[in-house]
């Protein structure tokens, strides 16, 4: 399909300097962001949109927390564990955060290996990332069941404002869903990497487009975003 396109004898226009140059680069033909592929651009814009989703969730939670007349349960106490007789506030959340941040590290390494076309290492690092992600979701499930066993429900809890439980289940649930979707995608992409789909440019089952190693980076963008969101949830829900 890509027949050569005949170009009339080209005369080059002088390129403007400074701010005008920046503007003309952005406004130039074909692509606004040079060297950014369609998939990557699409993921960035999706993440911008998703930022607004999480932003609205967090703002709504903050509005509820600030306007409630009943005292808000103390998260340090609610999320404390007794380990070996020691009372440790937020210990589980600290471990969960550590696990998720570590998974960002292995993801970044996977992207690096992907561009080196190191099939084996990429797949293994992605699997490790997925494993970290699954661990995170598993610990979240433990945290949920612990809170539920202590009587926390979306509509109420033993310690104070009912909005505590509602916001907790809604926000961590929505974030956990994101992590779960990320794990699923990591596994799918890792399998394709392992099989060598991106070396042979095998076509996608649904899209019939050629597979490229770039998808590893795009998956990584999503994964890092989910991590970053967790940092905000950690700061605004657990530490506040």
């Amino acid at each position: 399909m890509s027949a050569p396109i005949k170009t009339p004898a080209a005369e080059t226009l002088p390129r403007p300097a400074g701010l005008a140059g920046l503007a003309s680069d952005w406004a130039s033909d074909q692509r606004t962001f040079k060297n950014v592929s369609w998939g990557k651009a699409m993921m960035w814009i999706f993440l911008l949109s998703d930022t607004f989703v999480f932003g609205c969730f967090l703002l709504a939670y903050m509005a509820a927390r600030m306007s409630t007349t009943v005292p808000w349960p103390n998260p340090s106490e609610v999320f404390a564990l007794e380990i070996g007789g020691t009372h440790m506030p937020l210990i589980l959340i600290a471990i969960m955060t550590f696990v998720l941040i570590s998974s960002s590290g292995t993801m970044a390494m996977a992207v690096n290996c992907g561009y080196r076309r190191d099939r084996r290492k990429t797949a293994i690092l992605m699997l490790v990332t997925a494993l970290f992600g699954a661990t995170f979701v598993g610990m979240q499930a433990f945290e949920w069941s612990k809170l539920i066993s202590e009587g926390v429900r979306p509509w109420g809890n033993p310690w104070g404002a009912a909005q505590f439980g509602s916001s907790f289940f809604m926000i961590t649930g929505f974030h956990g869903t994101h992590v779960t979707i990320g794990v699923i995608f990591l596994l799918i992409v890792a399998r394709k990497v392992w099989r060598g789909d991106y070396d042979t440019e095998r076509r996608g089952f649904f899209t019939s487009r050629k597979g490229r190693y770039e998808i590893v980076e795009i998956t990584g963008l999503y994964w890092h975003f989910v991590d970053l969101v967790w940092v905000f949830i950690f700061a605004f829900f657990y530490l506040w």
Partner: protein
Amino acid sequence: MVDVRSGIGEALPPPEVEDVELYHPHSWWTKYVFSQDAKIIAIQYATTAIAIGMVALVLSWLMRLQLGFPGTFDFIDADAYYQFITMHGMIMVIYLLTALFLGGFGNYLIPLMVGARDMVFPYANMLSYWIYLLAVLVLVASFFAPGGPTGAGWTLYPPQAVLSGTPGGKDWGIILMLASLIIFIIGFTMGGLNYVVTVLQGRARGMTLMRLPLTVWGIFTATVMALLAFPALFVACVMMLFDRLLGTSFFMPAIVEMGEQLQHGGGSPILFQHLFWFFGHPEVYIVALPAFGIVSDLISTHARKNIFGYRMMVWAIVIIGGLSFIVWAHHMYVSGMNPYFGFFFATTTLIIAVPTAIKVYNWVLTLWRGNIHLTLPMLFALGFIVTFVNGGLTGLFLGNVVVDVPLSDTMFVVAHFHMVMGVAPIMVIFGAIYHWYPKMTGRMLNEALGQIHFWVTFLGAYLIFFPMHYVGLVGVPRRYYELGEMAFVQDSVHSLNAFISVMALIVGAAQIVFLFNLAWSVRHGRDAGGNPWRATTLEWQTPETPPAHGNWGKELPVVYRWAYDYSVPGAAEDFIPQNQPTPGLVTHEASS
């Protein structure tokens, strides 16, 4: 008079991306039903939107029957009336206008106008339509659910939306409504990402941002806005769904309902209003900006003149898009929020009038000394300008806090809103369909039927909504099932209401003429040829009409000029297509 200079079309950068590979359908199913071709998807979107829009039209008839002739129709009781207004509003705003402008025109026009083969991710684009269809089906399902659809008003304000006094509040109505919106937003996001990335990263060689037709600018900006505004609605819907299903109290204060203390407490109904209108106000411009863009192209093409102040028009679109995110609380002057908010939001609201007025001036100045052809698209474009000015002026009343407070929740608001966001964009939709139908089908729509459609719709809309302003100024509240014996309501209001209802029936019937025209002309319309309006933009330069899969045949188009080279001195024709090199020929394009 016009700044003309010699062509700049000769200098072209080399192609940056290789030509895309498209999915080639193998069967009837993948070609016409599960199609990944943006043009087919556009027609699917448009057909579904118009079909559900007809439901909303019938609902508006039923509402007007009740308002014009209260007590005459037994089957319209108060509950049914509220269900009608709610579903009419929601369908029109979301499922018709948003879906038709972005999913319909966006899908059809963006790839063609920017010179692309298709959207960047056709598969996600196809999913977008099917998820949209699912959202529509869930919405329609609520008509058949126990208790019927929700009657909470299209704004779905809690706490009433989920209480038993509201139709569907304790039944399936509100649940299906919220679920349908959530599904719609997911589907829209898939399409919206496609439209944005196609405009940003998928343009033809030579198609710089400042050579894009204003249609693309309008749809592009609106899509970006939608991607940032719909999240607020998504969150609000999820939270209200939890309030209704799980018994949470995000939006529910302590409430006694029918003498019984409910289990809710501590929530904030105003929070919902903030979330809703953070979506709701940009939504007005999500519908208006594509209309602005399309009408600019219609006027320029049918007045055979370059658009006046192209750069100003682009910046006005972008600035309106930005400002519309910081005006939302002007819908909430009477909500009991902090009065200082009102000051801020009234100021930002009135500032929006500046870029908007620039656009109106530029449309009129484009017409000035143009070679105006009173074709159907032009008639609708002119109808749009006057209607938009009328609706916009009453917006100045409602944007001011002190004037808004007495007018709030009266029929004046209904009249204003329908003029500016109902009639005006729908005028553009009609104009756009008359304009692009020849490209979609290869045949012209019937002119005589179109004239009937235009004049009845245009004059009828004024006969409906002008009296409604007066009814509102007298103080008649909106959303009242019947007025009864209120002392301040004169007899004239009752007769006006009857008059409005009759006009609404007539205008609605005129749309059947339009639908008949659409169906009839597919086979029997006059042959259109490739470029019946002698327009410059790329979609008219395709090798085939209607354009084949992949749009451009073997070679992608190369763009040498902007979209508005009409009546250029020295040119053989009164238009020069964007992909025509013609070295040495002058252009009206502004220097960059």
